[in-house]
C-alpha cells in the first residue's frame, strides 16, 4: 500500500515522498520534516492513524499540514472520526492512483489559493 501511495504521488504530482512504516516511525520524522501533505492510513502498526492526526493537529509544526486519511470503506466510523480530528479528506480503499493524486492536487491548490 505504501509503495502504491508513493508511486501515485511521485508519478502524478512529481512529489518528493517520505515514507513511514508505522505510526512511530512517522512520529520520529515529525520534528525534522515539514511536509506539504500527509497521507495516513487508519490502521497502522503501533500508533493508529487517528492518533497520528490528533498528534499532528496538536503540534506547532504540523498543525496546518493537510492530511488525507485512507482506510477501508467498511469503517465509516473511523472515517468520520478522522475528519473530526482534523483530517482534510478521506479516501476509501481500494482506490485508483488517480483518485489519490487528484485529491492531493485539489487540497494542495486550495492551500495555495488561501495563502
Amino acid at each position, binding site marked *: 500500500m505504501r509503495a502504491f501511495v508513493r508511486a501515485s504521488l511521485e508519478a502524478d504530482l512529481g512529489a518528493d515522498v517520505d515514507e513511514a512504516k508505522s505510526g512511530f516511525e512517522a512520529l520520529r520524522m515529525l520534528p525534522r520534516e515539514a511536509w506539504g501533505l500527509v497521507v495516513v492510513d487508519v490502521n497502522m*502498526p503501533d500508533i493508529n*492513524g*487517528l492518533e497520528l492526526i490528533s498528534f499532528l493537529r496538536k503540534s506547532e509544526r504540523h498543525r496546518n499540514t493537510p492530511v488525507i486519511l485512507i482506510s477501508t470503506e467498511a469503517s465509516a466510523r473511523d472515517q468520520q*472520526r478522522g475528519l*473530526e480530528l482534523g483530517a482534510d479528506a478521506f*479516501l*476509501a480503499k481500494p482506490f485508483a492512483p488517480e483518485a489519490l493524486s487528484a485529491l492531493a492536487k485539489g487540497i494542495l491548490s486550495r492551500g495555495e489559493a488561501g495563502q
Partner: protein
Amino acid sequence: MSELREEFLAEAQEIVEALSRDLLLLDQAHKDGTSTQDLINEVFRGVHTLKGIAGMFGYVRLGEVAHALEDLLDALRLGRREVSIGLLDALFEGVEVFQRLLVESPESPSSEVDLPAFLSRLASSESPGKRDAPDELAAYALDESVLAVLTEYEEHRLRTNVSKGMGLFRLRVRFSLMTIDTQLEDLKTRAKSVAEIITYLPSASGGDGDAIELDVVLASSAPFERLEEILGGDGAVLERVGRRPSRAPELAAPRPAARAQSTEHPAVILPPARPTSAPPAPSPTPRDVPAPRKELTADQLALRSVAHTVRVDIRKLDHLMNVVGELAIVRSAVTRLTEKLRGRPELRQLAIDLHRVNRGFERHLEELQDGILDVRMVPLGQTFDRLARIVRQLAREHDKEVQLVVSGAETEIDKLIVEELSDPLMHLIRNAIDHGIETPKRRELAGKPAMGTLVLNAYQKGNHVVIEIEDDGAGMNPQVIIETAISRGLVSEEAAAELSRDEALQLIFLPGFSTSAQVTDLSGRGVGMDVVKTNIARLGGVIDLHSELATGTKLTITLPVTLAIMSALLVRVGSREYALPITAVQEAIAFEERRVRNVEGREVLTLRGSTLPIARLDHLFRLPPAGAAKRFLVVASVGQKRAGLVVDALEGQQDIVIKPLGKSLSKVRGFAGATDLGDQRVALVLDAPGLLDEILAHERVLGEARR
C-alpha cells in the same frame, strides 16, 4: 508491466498461502475453544492487503471477493459476528476462490469461477451476529481525548476486556525518538504475558523535541502492584483508570472539535455527498472498548522480514545454475588439460601450479553451487498447508472425521520440485480420504477410533527427501486389485496368479487402473495412480506402496533434493558413455559372467545372499558387444527396486547438468536427457527409475531408443 504483474502474483500467492495457514489455525482454535482474536486479525490483514494489491493490478474479481471476505472478517474482529463452522467454510471457500482467480488473467476471466454464486453464498452465510453488551466503557474515567482517537477495532477490544472484568490502566512512558523502536519492543515483550495493550497515545506536549511521551492504555487482570513491577521503571508511571461515580451512565461528554485550531484551512475535501463544512456530528456508533494490540508485533515482524527478503524468479536461479553447470564443465576440461600437461616432463611444474589453481577454483565453484542450491530450497510446509486445507474440506464433504498429523514440514526441497509435487500429493491425499479412511460408523464397527488419522511426514535422507503419506484406513485388498486389473485387461489371469502380494498392490500404478467402482468427485478426476507415479518419476523420484488390509496404507515418495545439478557415475557401454545419477547407484563391482544364473528366463545373480536381476546394457540398447575382457556390474536402486547393470567400463564420477532431449525424443523411455561432459563429449543420462521399471518388467522397449 508483466514483471509488475508477476510480482503481484508472487505476493498474492504468498498472502493466500498465509491465509490458508491461519484459517487452519483458526479452525483449530475454534474447535479447542481458545482465543481466536489474533488469528482473526491476521486473516483480516491478509485479506485486506490482498484487496489492496488486487485493485492496483486490475484484478477486479479477486478484489471483489477480497472485499466481501473483508467485510465478513471485519464484522468478526469487531465482535459483530461470531466464529462458526459455516463462517469458516465460507472463509475456506474464499481462499479456494482466490487461488483459482489468481490463475486467470484479469482481462479474460475464466468461467470456472462462478463469482456471483460465491458472493451470494457468502452474503447468505451472514446471520445476525451477537451484539456487544451494554456500554460498560462509560463507567471508566477515560478522557474523552483518549476515546476520540480510538479506532473502531480498538474500542471493541477495550470493551471486550472491560466486559471480561479486566482492569484498565494507563502507563505513561517517555521514549527517545532515536530508540523508540527498541524501547517499544521491550515494553510489548514485558506487557505480553500480563496485559493487553489497547493503544499508544502520543501525548500532546511532546513531538517537537528529541523524546516523546506516550500514554499506553492497557487492560489486565493482574493487580496494580504486579503490573507496576513488570512495566514500571525508567521513569514509567502506571496509573489505574478508575471507575466513574455511578452517575455517569454513558459517554455523554460532547466530543471536542479537535480541529478547532485549523480553521484557517480553507477547505475540507470529502468524498462526494459528505458536506465538509458541517460541524462534526457525534459519532452514532456506541463506544466500543478497544483491546490490546498484540497484532502489532506481528506487523512489525512482517515489515522487518520483508526488508531483508528479495523475491526472485526461479528462472533467474535456473539461469545461474546453468552458468554454474557450464563452469563445472570448464573445470572438468581444465582438469583434463592438467592431466595432459603432467604427462610432459618439461611442463610438470606448470601442471602442478595449474592443478593448485584449479583446486581453488573447484572449491569456490562448489560454494557457489551450494549457495544457489540453498536459495532454491523451500520448506515443504507451504505444500503441506495447502494439503491440510484439502483434508479438512474433503473430510467434511465425505462426512468422515480425519485428523491430519504433519511432521517434518521444515524439510527443504527444490522449489521446482515443490511446485510439481502439489498435484501428486493432492491426489494421494484425496485417495486416502476417499478410499482409505472409512466412515466413523464403519470405523467403530471395526474397533477403530471414529476419527481417522492421516500422517504426512517428511524428512531428508542423504541426497533425498522422503515424504510419507500414511492413513489408518481400510487398506488395500490385493485380491480386489488383481480382479480389477484382470477385468480391465491389464494383466492376464496366469500372470496374476504368480504375483506376490506386494506385486499385486503395484498393479494400481498401471495406466487404466481405478479401483473405485463409482467415480467420486474426490479421486475420480480422470487422474490415476499411474499419472501420480509418472509425475513423481519425472522429478527423479519413486513411489512405494505398503498396505495392510484393515490397518491402513502407507505411500512413500523418495525425491532428489534438487534437479538443478546432479552427481553422476559415467559408464561406458561399447564405445558410448552414459551418465547414471549417483543417487541411484548403490555400488559398482567387477562382473563375473560365471555367477549369472537364469531364472525363469531372467538373468540374475546372487549378491550377498539376495537375488539381483541383471541387465546387459549393450543388449538392452542393441549396441555391438565391445568384447571387453573385464566388465562391471553397477547395482542401481531406486526406492525398493534394485537391478544390476552390466557395463564395459566405469569412467568416474562427475557433476552434470541435464539438458532435455528435445521434443522429438521426449517420448523415448529410459533416458532423462543428455549432458555435456566437456572435451566435446556428450553422454545420455539414464533415467534410473524408468530404466529399472523396464528391466524389472523384462520388456525390451528400450530397444527403440537405440542410437
